[in-house]
């Protein structure tokens, strides 16, 4: 029991420590593809350090929502970390506290407060960006639900630790159409949720075209650092759900040995690295969609998720 507790804390520590590095690597890879040198892969850490040592300025008109939002955005991914497998493939201390839908709700809560805070600043760009984020959000919602439907139908559960075993036991389950199609749909969801390229350009700094970035324009100092770090961690947590729950439990620790769990860190990081390379290829070969074309992208994801559900319903 105590060991499980320690492993859970280790998972949280890994998510906190490695998530800025992932974003740094992703930025570096993208710059390399465009034959530029790019910032160091440790740049996000330096950004965070710089922001933490600065003073915070708060808009005069804003209310308590603006003040608690950075903490919520920072806490939500850490809270989800308790529910999902990051390093171990067996359930840990808090694993049965909530399922994948619960994790989705926790992340949605942070997103809700971030939206409110953007409106709270009375900055017109914030309100515009948050309305766009909500548009992408409500288009993403049915896909989430259908993906969870399919998962619960195939694995008889939505607890991540039980779901991940289903896809590799027996091995031929990996090639089930429902599995592969869910992977595609969920990948498209991650792109939409994290504002990656076909939906939103994360490196664009033109306020009128921003979707995801314009929500935290008004934050400064420690608040901005927490918002940024929370964003990095949300990205890492979504990658962990994708790679460790939906793709495979390969590379995770299966014994209660400390050495195994520590060895799982580089293995998981290796999987994340492969994911980042795939993401770089996609981001470098596609252009950002027009705002009204986003609904086509999301409809495509919805169709794929629904087909996954129907094939699984017919196959079993």
């Amino acid at each position, binding site marked *: 029991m105590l060991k499980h507790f320690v492993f859970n804390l280790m998972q949280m520590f890994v998510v906190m420590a490695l998530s800025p590095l992932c974003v740094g690597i992703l930025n570096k890879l993208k710059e390399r593809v465009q034959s530029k040198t790019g910032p160091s892969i440790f740049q996000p850490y330096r950004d965070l350090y710089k922001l933490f040592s600065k003073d915070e300025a708060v808009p005069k008109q804003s209310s308590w929502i603006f003040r608690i939002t950075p903490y919520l955005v920072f806490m939500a991914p850490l809270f989800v970390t308790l529910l999902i497998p990051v390093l171990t493939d067996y359930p840990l201390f808090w694993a049965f506290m909530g399922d994948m839908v619960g994790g989705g709700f926790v992340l949605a809560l942070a997103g809700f407060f971030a939206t409110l805070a953007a409106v709270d600043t009375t900055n017109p760009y914030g309100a515009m960006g948050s309305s766009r984020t909500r548009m992408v959000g409500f288009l993403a919602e049915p896909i989430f639900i259908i993906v969870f439907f399919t998962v619960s139908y195939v694995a008889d559960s939505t607890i991540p630790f039980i779901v991940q075993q289903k896809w590799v036991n027996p091995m031929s*389950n990996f090639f089930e159409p429902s599995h592969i199609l869910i992977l595609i749909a969920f990948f498209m969801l991650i792109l939409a949720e994290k504002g990656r390229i076909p939906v939103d350009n994360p490196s664009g700094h033109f306020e009128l075209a921003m979707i995801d970035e314009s929500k935290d324009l008004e934050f400064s100092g420690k608040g901005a650092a927490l918002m940024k770090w929370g964003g990095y961690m949300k990205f890492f947590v979504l990658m962990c759900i994708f790679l460790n729950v939906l793709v495979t439990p390969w590379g995770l620790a299966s014994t209660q040995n400390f050495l195994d769990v520590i060895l799982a860190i580089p293995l998981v990081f290796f999987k994340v690295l492969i994911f980042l390379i795939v993401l770089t290829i996609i981001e470098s070969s596609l252009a950002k969609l027009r705002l009204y074309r986003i609904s086509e992208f999301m409809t495509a994801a919805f169709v794929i998720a629904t087909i996954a559900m129907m094939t699984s319903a017919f196959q079993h």
Partner: protein
Amino acid sequence: MNINLSLLINLNALAGGLFIISAFGIVGSRQIGVCLKFFILESLFLSCSAFLIGMELKSLHPIGVGLINLITKVFLIPYMLKIILPSTIYTKREINHIINIPSSLIISLFLTIIGWFLAIPLILALGPDPILYINLPIGISGLLLGAYTLTVRREALPQLIGILAMENGAFFAGISLARDLSVITELAAAFDILVMVFVVAVLTRKIHEQTGTTFVGILKSLKEEAK
């Protein structure tokens, strides 16, 4: 309804899933070149499914059918279209859909569900078989999606691709029903299709030469201008 799943059956089901996704791609793509690429993918998955069924039943007939399908639809037809039609039409975007793309995709989804329900009585009549569970509903849905493409598209080449997609769907269902379908049948069908593609492509080329467009949706008003 529980079936002992083997790797081959799962792979066949995966080919079916990707087959229906590429059928959705044909419905939802704007560019004519992309539409053709989705059709090539669809034919490729049809061949994969035929090979897997052949391996599973240890029969040569489905493999022969898959091979002929691979040669005609994945290599010959795109090649023929490429040499007959002017290359400019592939990069053109067809903006004037009758129904916009997101609604088209949702309607197609309903068509797929209808296809699935149409397959249930057939499956019940033919007895439980893991190949039938996948190939029959997906084949019928592919047929319906091809017919839908034919209805909403107004360019010549996507309409042709719609007909070919219908044929793909029929074959996808057919290889699961007629297990010992002789290669001669498929050979005859393949030649038929080649001739049809040739005729339609030459016709499209003539239309393109005369009017500078392949937008056959406006052919009616052309007739009035000639008066």
